[in-house]
């Protein structure tokens, strides 16, 4: 503390911070990024391990032998589906399957209102404004003997309504097979809930909301008449066929929540035990686990995970459990042609092992990690590892802000040196161009500056610009809904109206600097320094807070926004700056990262124009789902971007286009007089 409280060394510190500011910033940023990327390299991350001893994975011998039940049931379900093609879920049949095993079987009906006007109905009658989705969840509880139903584990599977695709009948078959096997054992210490969900996420959300009785106004559902206790963990099952070549383990949940690493580890270990390959984001673990290709592969897996996590949208039904502090993962069974595959027997044994391990749990998952990144299925980067590089990147913002703050009120070493001439010229040209009225204005400005020049920047000038930015953000956050309402009046397609609402405010606010420059806000160098300093501090706070909640989002924002925002300054090279700023705007970032995601996942390249079209479509759907999920599932990504990141960005955008007026002139005059 001596460094800070001793004014002498404080001055020294500030001098260093001011003098070597730019090199320090560059150094911090480069080291931060390189350090972060290096974390994907094997020697820099760690091997996963079991922190929770009670799990005892694979300690018991698997006894699962009812794989033919799985085959039979999945075939029967397929037959039913073939008969009534577009029909609803065969609830009665499913209920009978569960009840036939002697399980307590219940159904839950729900109606979800999606706050998007339905195109069809509004055209027809204009009565039903919103899309309504109704479905029926079926769940069965296997009551554990000698327990008071205080704890439960969930095995869930979605019933998919896609027309031509598979609808997860294999998962249901396996679920029934497991239920009939589990029913015979008396060692269960936790109830097991088998849940078949109608319509992916919405059905799951309906069930979870009703189970915990947390009601949302858009969702109406019939009460659950049977419950078990507090749910400890959940496994969600999606099988694309009865033979799978690998399990794709999905982790990323709502708002970037991740399941406890112990659970992920458990699944990975038990799959390994049954010799089923595990992939993360369809990426295989590199075989020679060291070397350059392995690093590339690990980096790819980690980037994909980060890109997924940053969206804040769950990539499986498990994601919705996480909000309720229920650890959950999705196992997606995929058949890759040309690879060796395994059938229900091994899959059943994996799940049996997982459930018996979960059954051993004495406490909730609390050990191990909740914040981590996985470069491979058996390697992890913990929060302690990835936070320092992120801190270094944020240090750039902090250093810049400190340098600016120190420079306020000093005429010497101007961090925006070189700009003076331009500005003077500019002012002079404006004087000549505009005529006399301006002349008096600028004179008044000069006299004003005489008192203001070396004092603090005008703090009050921050108020209008910050509030303008915030208002713009607020409008952006509510505009999708407003626009859909308006679009309904004008007969626009609802999704287009939604998109217009989401992006319209963004494009509209690009013109905000124009409005701000017009008025007579004082705009000395110091004021501008103060502005940028405030913007940087705000940015640092927003990014740090975002990273605490959803690290990937914070990191991806920081990596791109920090250098550009640290560099921008009013005046010079305005066009280049504008282009850079547009690139790191929320919309620009969305396009960049969607492009990166496509680059990492798509194998075929179709040429520039089709790829660009494809990219645009994906971006379009990303915005759409971001907005809609915000209303239906409660993701806060769109709100965060609209209410925090976008206003902050707009603030920088205004600074870029802010005209710096008189102070330099004043400076010169002083020099002349002295």
């Amino acid at each position: 503390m001596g460094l800070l409280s001793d004014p002498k060394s404080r001055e020294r510190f500030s001098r260093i911070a001011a003098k070597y500011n730019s090199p320090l910033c560059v150094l911090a940023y480069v080291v931060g990024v390189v350090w972060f990327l290096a974390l994907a390299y094997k020697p820099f991350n760690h091997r996963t391990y079991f922190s929770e001893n009670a799990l005892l994975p694979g300690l018991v011998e698997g006894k699962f032998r009812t794989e033919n039940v799985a085959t039979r049931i999945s075939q029967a379900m397929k037959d039913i589906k073939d008969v009534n093609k577009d029909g609803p879920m065969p609830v009665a049949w499913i209920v009978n399957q569960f009840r036939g095993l002697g399980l307590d079987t219940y159904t839950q009906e729900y109606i979800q209102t999606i706050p998007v006007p339905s195109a069809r109905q509004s055209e027809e009658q204009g009565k039903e404004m919103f899309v309504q989705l109704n479905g029926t969840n079926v769940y069965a509880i296997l009551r554990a003997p000698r327990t008071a139903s205080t704890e439960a584990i969930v095995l869930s599977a979605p019933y998919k309504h896609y027309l031509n695709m598979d609808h997860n009948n294999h998962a249901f078959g396996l679920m029934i097979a497991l239920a009939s096997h589990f029913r015979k054992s008396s060692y269960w210490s936790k109830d097991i809930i088998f849940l078949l969900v109608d319509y992916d996420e919405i059905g799951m959300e309906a069930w979870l909301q009703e189970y915990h009785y947390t009601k949302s106004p858009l969702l109406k559902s019939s009460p659950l008449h049977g419950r078990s206790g507090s749910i400890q963990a959940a496994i969600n099952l999606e099988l694309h066929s009865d033979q799978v070549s690998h399990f794709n383990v999905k982790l990323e949940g709502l708002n970037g929540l991740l399941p406890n690493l112990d659970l992920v580890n458990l699944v990975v270990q038990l799959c390994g035990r049954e010799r089923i390959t595990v992939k993360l984001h369809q990426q295989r673990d590199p075989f020679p686990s060291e070397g350059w290709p392995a690093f590339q592969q690990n980096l790819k897996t980690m980037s994909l995970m980060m890109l997924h996590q940053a969206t804040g949208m769950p990539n499986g039904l498990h994601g919705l459990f996480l909000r309720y502090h229920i650890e959950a993962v999705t196992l997606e069974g995929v058949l890759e042609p040309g690879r060796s595959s395994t059938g229900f027997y091994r899959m059943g044994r994996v799940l049996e092992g997982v459930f018996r391990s979960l059954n051993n749990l004495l406490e909730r998952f609390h050990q191990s990690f909740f914040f981590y990144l996985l470069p491979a299925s058996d390697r992890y980067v913990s929060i302690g590892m990835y936070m320092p590089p992120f801190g270094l990147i944020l240090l750039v913002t902090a250093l810049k802000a400190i340098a600016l703050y120190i420079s306020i009120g000093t005429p010497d070493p101007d961090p925006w040196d070189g700009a003076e001439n331009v500005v003077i010229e500019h002012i002079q040209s404006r004087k000549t161009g505009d005529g006399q009225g301006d002349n008096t204005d600028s004179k008044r400005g000069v006299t004003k500056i005489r008192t203001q020049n070396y004092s603090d920047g005008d703090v009050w000038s921050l108020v209008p610009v910050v509030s303008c930015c915030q208002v713009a953000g607020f409008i952006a956050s509510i505009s999708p809904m407003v626009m859909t309402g308006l679009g309904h009046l004008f007969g626009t397609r609802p999704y287009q109206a939604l998109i217009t609402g989401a992006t319209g405010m963004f494009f509209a606010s690009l013109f905000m600097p124009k409005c701000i420059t017009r008025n007579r806000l004082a705009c000395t160098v110091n004021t501008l320094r103060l502005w940028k300093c405030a913007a940087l501090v705000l940015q640092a706070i927003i990014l740090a807070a975002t990273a605490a909640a959803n690290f990937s989002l914070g990191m991806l924002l920081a990596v791109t926004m920090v250098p550009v925002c640290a560099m921008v300054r009013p005046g010079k090279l305005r066009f280049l700056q504008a282009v850079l700023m547009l690139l790191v705007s929320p919309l620009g970032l969305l396009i960049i990262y969607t492009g990166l995601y496509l680059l990492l996942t798509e194998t075929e390249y179709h040429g520039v124009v089709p790829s660009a079209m494809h990219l645009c479509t994906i971006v379009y759907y990303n915005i759409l789902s971001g907005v809609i999920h915000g209303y239906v599932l409660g993701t806060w990504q769109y709100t965060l971007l609209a209410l925090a990141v976008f206003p902050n960005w707009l603030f920088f955008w205004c600074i870029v286009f802010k005209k710096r007026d008189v102070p330099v002139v004043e400076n010169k005059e002083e020099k002349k007089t002295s």
Partner: protein
Amino acid sequence: MAERGPTLLFSVFFCLLCYVFHTVASTKDEYSEELLIIPFRSGQVYSHFEFTTLWDVDFAQGGGGRYKLQHFRLFPRALGQVMTEYRVQEMHLTLTQGMWQQDKWGYPVTSAAPGAELWAWFQQEVDDVDQAWFGLTNALSGLFCASLNFIDSTSTATPHLSFRPQGLAEGLFSTKPSHLRYATLPRENVCTENLTPWKKLLPCSTRTGLAALFHAGQLYNTQYSSLGVHLRPVCRNDSCRDASLELRQVLSTVADPPATLNGKQDWSMKRYFSRSLSGPCPMAVTSRVYVDVTTNQTSSFTLKPEPTELKLTNYQGYNRKLAVYDLWSFPFHKEHGLNVDMKWKKEVSYKELFPPRLYVHRFVTGYGQEHGGIMSLLYNRHPYLEQQIIYMELLPWFTRMYLHTLKVETTEGNLVQPLLTRYTPGRDRQNPYLLEIVLTLPPDSTTRISFSFERAFLKWTEYPPDANHGFYISSAVLTTILRQADNFTVPPHMGSGLQSGLFHSSTEFPLRLHTETLLISLPTPDFSMPYNVICLTCTVIAIAFGSLHNLTTRRFQYTDLKKANSGGMRAWLAQLFGRGKQATSEDKLREPGKESEDPGEESETSEENDYIGEQRELVTPRVRAESDKKDR
């Protein structure tokens, strides 16, 4: 004289004999043992043992409801002495593993909360009820090897409505509401160590009679098992001029044969108790096994061996057919022991549940670790009868209940006005929260009772070793009187033993239902290395706070060197006479930040002097600029 000697001796002996006979006759006791087996439609098989000891104790001798138990014959001495010592009038203890599933199985003979549940009425003369209660819990804890000694004031309550005396409560036995104590331990695990002392209380122990079936390994491999001890004073005869002391020892289990037996419900004593009966307990007046064969008409099963008697009962149009094995008349010499064996022809066909007329379902609402809620759904499925009920909720102190959030409404949204609400607020680390509501359930409705609570922070020593497992909230209790006897496995009756309930009709059926126990998680610190790191970091930050605060709030201003020097002297003096001295106006001028100087500032005296001495150099650039201007 020589002849009269023996006569006298004889007469003395005779007198003595008479006296002994009198004493024995005055403390007459009898013992009966019964077993009821009911195959449920849902595939499970319920077996309920009931051992009743009736003792005609002379209550008047002790005065009031007091009794002094002496000369034990069939009544267990270990228990009797405890009851005498703590002047217990009525005592009910149940130790249960598992939960009775009302919606599948109807109502049990005696309802029990999961874990341990104990409630006792003390005699009117007891002055310090709490002391007697803690004495009783400790004694019972030792007697039954249960953790009843963990019952303390934080888990004990005195409900006024839900737990009325079940035996006599008038005349000699009248007592005050304050003499009731009720406590539960929802986390109690029940197993053989509780069964062994429990069965030792039986007159024949497990050597013969029905108790011979108790094989711990089998009893605890079931869906549900509960054992209980119930003590109460009852009427000796119909006139009720005298009273007897009744001790009921009950044990219930629910086995689930279809889970293990290819879907069939087959049940036999040999398979589920691993032995067969060899004869009645010689002490027992009645020794019977009842098997409910009512369902035999719909899903046929064969019952072997032939029952000694078939009885038909009829309650309000609800027929029941019972096969009775009287162990006293069963030909044990012919058969090779009695092994009741039920065999079904077909597998169990599971149908939709047919829940009873009145049942409860309770659960935790909300998520997160700050607030939470509890909701109970009370189902009254009777098509046209209202049902008045008493609902009792006992919450531990660390779930701070908000009474203002209490909401009673039907699922249609109609408010149900409670007839009476009794609420005893809890106090941290002292009392639990107790809520009793009397309300009328509308016919054919589901009523929601809900309220919120706040999760308290515990002290770090108060967490159990497995802190992240969660904390249990004991069952809520629903008490009522039903008009109809269907759904009861045995309709309750004031008389003793199962047969009074099975064969004597009544018009009112008192019912007590226990809901699910709940598991909630409290905010739990991470009891590990990171936790220590956090503590350490917080300490460091707390220490550094002073300097940081100082740094961010102090403002430097220009000062004259001369004045500063003299000020240095003054400051030095001020330092000598304590820092608390108020600065003079000049001081203020010199350094306004000085007043706000943080006491946490670590600078020593010498530093302080240096600091003031250096005032000239301290002037910040901003100030220097101003001075430049002046110079100009």
